[in-house]
């Protein structure tokens, strides 16, 4: 039953069952579920506000600016000010828009991010539900957002929006494949599809055993959340704002919520699957812990988010055909290679002891480095020095050529 091992759920349930008369314990279950849903949905919203603020501050510092610092202490209330502004803004709907699709698109976008909250373990025994197909659920539910992007782009009756939506659908569908394949290696190692179980299966973080898988998943997840350098869906210098060009006010805010929600949730999945989730990476489980497991989880998610912000501050955008080529020509074979290597390893050493584990780590690391370098050499241009294409010509001032 879902309650097993879930202290959070059990405590609330126990409280309500004590209050309710016999025979109405199902009601207690319902109330508990609703309360948890309420708590987690709002937690995500608050997190989004916090991440938006932090991203703007950190991006600002990367760019030698300060970022928002006027509203509240250190500008921390800026998301609230933004929210107020969004709420009071006029909600413009284009005359040619498909009104129903236009209005439904933000909701379709935001639901997957919220639904994903249900399966992620935030700490020791802290999760909404331990779905036994958690990873599958996570992958399946994220692909819904591409539908939302397409609805928004199509419903806006704007050519920039349509272009963005076309790009979005093509890219999101393509990156599903390497993303899923990179997770299969983890499934083989962990032997479970449950996200809760995956954390328990990580004696050492899977990033060490699956460096290639981690790399592929990180890149594919970045594409899935439309972040730089894969932000062609809303490429501001090309197609104004992509699929949400025509949106304003609260609807635009919901898109923002969905995007940043998806970013947080994807980072959480990444942490859960590859970075041993809520576990303390330095002190093994069972030993006395100083920091609560929830805080470790938060720290790791923060680290991943910082990496994403750092990349966004540095790297330009790829073109659509390059992005598609990257997915199919590089990420897909890399994920397959990772899968094959992992499968062989699992077949040979089904239950590795500690030193066998470290040997596997070394092998996988070597494979990852070799594969990345090999692919770089195969697909990279014959790199001489790219800056050599410009030569300095010394001319005497009076003479031509």
């Amino acid at each position: 039953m879902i309650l097993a091992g879930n202290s959070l759920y059990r405590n609330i349930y126990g409280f309500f069952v004590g209050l309710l008369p016999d025979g109405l314990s199902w009601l207690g279950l319902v109330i508990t579920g609703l309360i948890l849903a309420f708590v987690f949905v709002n937690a995500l919203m608050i997190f989004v506000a916090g991440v938006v603020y932090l991203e703007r501050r950190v991006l600002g510092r990367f760019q030698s600016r300060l970022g928002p610092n006027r509203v509240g202490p250190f500008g921390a209330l800026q998301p609230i000010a933004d929210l107020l502004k969004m709420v009071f803004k006029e909600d413009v709907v284009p005359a040619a828009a498909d009104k129903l699709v236009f209005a439904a698109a933000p909701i379709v976008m935001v639901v997957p991010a919220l639904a994903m909250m249900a399966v992620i373990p935030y700490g020791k025994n802290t999760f909404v539900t331990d779905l036994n197909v958690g990873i599958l659920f996570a992958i399946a539910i994220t692909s819904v957002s591409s539908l939302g992007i397409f609805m928004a782009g199509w419903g806006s009756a704007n050519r920039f929006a349509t272009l963005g939506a076309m790009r979005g659908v093509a890219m999101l569908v393509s990156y599903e494949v390497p993303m899923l394949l990179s997770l299969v290696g983890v499934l083989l190692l962990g032997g479970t599809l449950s996200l809760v179980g995956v954390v328990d299966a990580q004696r050492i973080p899977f990033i060490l055993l699956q460096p290639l898988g981690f790399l592929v998943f990180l890149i594919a997840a970045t594409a899935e959340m439309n972040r730089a350098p894969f932000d062609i869906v809303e490429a501001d210098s090309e197609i104004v704002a992509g699929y949400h060009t025509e949106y304003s006010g609260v609807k635009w805010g919901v898109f923002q919520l969905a995007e940043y929600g998806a970013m947080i949730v994807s980072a959480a999945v990444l942490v859960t699957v590859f970075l041993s989730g809520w576990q303390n990476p330095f002190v093994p489980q069972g030993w006395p812990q100083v920091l609560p497991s929830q805080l470790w989880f938060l720290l790791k998610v923060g680290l991943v988010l910082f990496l994403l912000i750092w990349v966004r501050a540095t790297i330009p955008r790829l073109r659509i055909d390059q992005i598609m080529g990257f997915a199919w020509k590089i990420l897909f074979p890399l994920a397959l290679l990772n899968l094959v290597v992992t499968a062989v390893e699992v077949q040979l050493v089904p239950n590795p002891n500690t030193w066998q584990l470290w040997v596997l780590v070394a092998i996988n690391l070597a494979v990852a480095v070799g594969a990345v370098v090999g692919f770089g050499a195969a697909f990279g241009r014959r790199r001489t020095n790219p800056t050599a294409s410009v030569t300095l010509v010394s001319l005497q001032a009076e003479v031509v050529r």
Partner: protein
Amino acid sequence: MTNLQQHPEPPAELEAEPVVVNLGPQHPSTHGVFRLRVIMDGETIQDVEPIFGYLHRGTEKLAEERSYTQVVTLTDRLDYTAAMSNNLAYVLAVEKLAGIEVPERGMYLRVIAAELQRIAAHLIFVGFSLDELGAFHTPLLYGFRERERILDLFEMLCGARITVSYMRPGGVHQDAPVDFWPALDRFLADMPHYLDELQGLIAENEIVVARTKGLAVLLAAKAINCSMSGPVLRASGVAWDLRKQDPYDVYGRMQFDIPVGANGDTYDRLLVRLYEARQSLRIVAQARKEIPGGPVRTQAPFFIRPPVGEAYGHVEAPKGELGFYLVSQGGISPYRCKIRSPSFINLTALKEMLVGYKVADLVVIFGSIDVNMGEVDR
């Protein structure tokens, strides 16, 4: 990423209807109020029609009813990222027309100001190019941070940062203040590191290389036939720089090299400007070392009355050859003042450069020509 560079043709059975998209006049990366009417097949550009004139202020007509000195203030507003170069081109034309001599110190100050302005303009170009490639404003803001120091120097020189109006027929309006020289020395010491950093951020970045290498190649013959000038022409492999080929002021005494591109693609256009900024630093350093004392301005009357005739004065502005063609009928204002603006003429080859590429490349290619709408529309 050779294999990722290609634009695969869609299969024949996928019939798509061409779509007309108006990029601009209000668009994030059209450098002002520029409009491109693009006919696209999916993401691929089939036809382009540039439409401009939204910023037309009739500078040439305005110049006909102002005195020769007053027109200097109009030239500030042509290419507002390179006001010093515009000033210089105009006063050179007036000096040629009226036969005004310029004292040496004035010439050196003009060279220093114009080269600082070139660095500033190229920093803006590099920043915006990367912005168009999608680097979330970071190189742009780094570029603006360094440009700020150049603008501070301009404020010391002439009290304004953008619309400088620094030069006058016969020199510059005023000698540099005493604290300008130490500030210039500090700037010259710091700037190479900043340029190194900027170059490290972008020049070898694989994504920048993949996005710009081989993109919109402009061959030398085509560039010459289209009257392209400036860094665009040099990126196509033509070593043509008016500072060398037709030296004005004291450029004949300066030691510097001309960066020339090998392929004429967008990457070369980007890099040529980065290298030019370094050469400009060299020129400024030399001019600062060699600058003689003495007056900075010939006492020309405010209302100059040049003899009847005509003159064409030109400089190598950051965008290309900027020329002023002045016709005098003996009055206090030019009878005709034609501005040969590089941005405007460099747009000639825009269509050839764009057709066949993707919409994401459009903004990059357009940006790599480096036009300034204040100068295109005049």
